[in-house]
């Protein structure tokens, strides 16, 4: 308690030097929280968007389906298993069929995916209802990215070619009845959504699907022969890895920031010990032990960490709260980054992040303060009083 009181007096008495260090350290402190908050928010945002538009509560994949191998799509279909049909009937699951096709926008050949979805489904947040039966046409729905790349517009007719289950080429015209905007590229790029029943009919695969998407909240997933259930941990694995990889870049940045701030604290401590040798001698003469002296100087350094948290709170709380509420606007080009960012990123600052960062800054500051103060242990009182360092 005594050392705490004395350290506090000393650090307050040091005036500008203390506040400069605290300001430098607080910058690292706020930046770490901000960047971590951005990555957490980004992860949450992307995860939420991906779950709501692609993964649902998990997916049954046909045993031959491999999302990274387009050739697997030829065989990746099968009758919707009876075990999950009851879920589909209760609108707790929806089947999706994926087939390869090609289009010729502007006379140029382009490979696409034809995706069949039930227009009545409500499992995925995709405007599938626009695909409800329309007389005489095959209604098709594309995303804004696909529209941009192909030059397709609303009500355009586009010739789509595919192969039936027997390998025969066939082609029809699809009418673009809707162009949707989504942050998730996986439901947009190079694909046309049409009604599932139509896709089953034109490919001669009645009642079949490539995958069945389950509703979120369902916990029981019966094993199905010939189909593999993929839970969210598996489905989001790539996404988490990508976010982790991106957050590593941020970590390097804030590690450098931390190192610079720590260097400032270390230098301050070294200079303090050098400049205050005589003061140390006086403190020893007044009866302070070496252990107390080391404790005092270490605590003074640690106070920089506490003050940094306080200074950081003064400008960090309004700044971070504002970004959390209003989001961080992203340039348009980030739409093609491969992440479902949206127009803005909304950082998420958890109590764990804030307390964890505060603890990290405090621990690291204390350690870098302690290292130079160890020299005090070798100090002879008579030398210190003369301003000598032994």
């Amino acid at each position, binding site marked *: 308690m005594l050392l705490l009181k004395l350290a506090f007096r000393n650090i*307050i*008495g040091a005036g500008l030097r203390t506040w400069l260090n605290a300001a430098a350290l607080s910058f690292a402190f706020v930046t770490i929280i901000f960047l971590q908050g951005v990555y957490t928010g980004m992860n949450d945002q992307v995860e939420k968007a991906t779950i709501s538009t692609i993964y649902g509560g998990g997916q049954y994949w046909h045993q031959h389906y491999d999302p990274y191998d387009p050739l697997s799509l030829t065989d990746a279909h099968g009758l919707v298993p009876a075990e999950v049909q009851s879920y589909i009937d209760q609108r707790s699951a929806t089947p999706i069929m994926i087939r390869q096709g090609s289009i010729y926008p502007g006379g140029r050949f382009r490979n696409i995916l034809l995706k069949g979805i039930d227009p009545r489904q409500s499992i995925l947040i995709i405007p599938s209802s626009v695909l409800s039966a329309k007389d005489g046409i095959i209604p098709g729905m594309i995303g804004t990215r696909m529209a941009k790349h192909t030059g397709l517009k609303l009500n355009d007719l586009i010739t789509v070619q595919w192969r039936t289950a027997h390998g025969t080429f066939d082609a029809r015209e699809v009418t673009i009845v809707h162009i949707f905007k989504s942050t998730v590229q996986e439901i947009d790029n190079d694909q046309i959504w049409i009604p599932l029943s139509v896709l089953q009919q034109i490919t001669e695969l009645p009642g079949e699907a490539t995958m069945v998407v389950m509703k979120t909240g369902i916990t029981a997933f019966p094993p199905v022969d010939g189909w593999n259930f993929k839970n969210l941990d598996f489905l989001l694995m790539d996404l988490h890895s990508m976010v982790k990889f991106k957050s590593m870049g941020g970590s390097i940045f804030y590690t450098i920031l931390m190192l610079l701030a720590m260097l400032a604290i270390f230098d301050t401590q070294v200079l303090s010990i050098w400049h205050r040798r005589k003061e140390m001698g006086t403190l*020893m*003469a*007044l009866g*302070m*032990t070496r252990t*107390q002296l080391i404790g005092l100087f270490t605590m003074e350094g640690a106070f920089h960490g506490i003050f940094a948290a306080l200074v950081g709170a003064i400008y960090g709380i309004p700044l971070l709260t504002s970004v959390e509420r209003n989001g961080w606007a992203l340039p348009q080009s980030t739409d093609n980054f491969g992440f479902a960012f949206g127009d803005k990123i909304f950082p998420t600052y958890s109590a764990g992040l804030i307390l964890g960062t505060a603890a990290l800054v405090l621990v690291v500051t204390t350690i870098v303060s302690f290292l130079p103060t160890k020299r005090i242990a070798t100090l002879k009182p008579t030398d210190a009083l003369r301003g000598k360092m032994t």
Partner: protein
Amino acid sequence: MMNDMNSPLIRTEHLNKFYSLASTTLKALDDINISVAKGEFLGLVGPSGSGKTTLLNIIGSLDSPTSGSAEVLGMKIELQSHKESSRLRNDHIGFIFQTFNLLPVYTVYENVEFPLLLLGTSGVQRKQMVMQALEWVGLEDRAKSKPSQLSGGQSQRVAIARAIVKQPAIVLADEPTANLDAANSHNIMNTMSELNKQLETTFIFATHDEKVISYLRRKVTLVDGRVEKDEIMEPVRY
């Protein structure tokens, strides 16, 4: 551990302190044998390099002898650990330095309060003792000032207040007037002389300042690390 009523407060026997300088050995103190009783107002007098400060440092347990013995308040300095030395200084010894050595970021009050904080004195008692010490040195009205706002004489008076606030058995003053003008030097010496009478604190000075010498009641003259003379004085200004 503490000495009884009749034994001296400080006693040195065949005390030697040597320093190794390259290939030579410097004898800072050579066979010093002195005793100091409670309430003495004593000066270690001699030219620069005569060993005054070294002897003062050993008595203050800031340094230890190379050989021989130094006993302060019944405790043998040469046997003290760092912690025991700190305890001895904290409990029983006050220091006054030539350059005042006030803690720059503390106020006058906080400087004087410091030894009491180390002793763990309670808040109420601490305040009372600090104000009493400031009153002794006539600086009650400067309690909130910082050392940088004080004159040399005032700074040294704060240092005296800091040395005596815990009412130690011994006050060691190393050239306390070296940085002061004549008027301030006499002022300081008067203050210490009064405190010596009032509190019966033993004062030991290391000095070659005639102004200080004129206040002494005992003068131990050191030359080349040896006691040349040990005289009882009739203080001119006592």
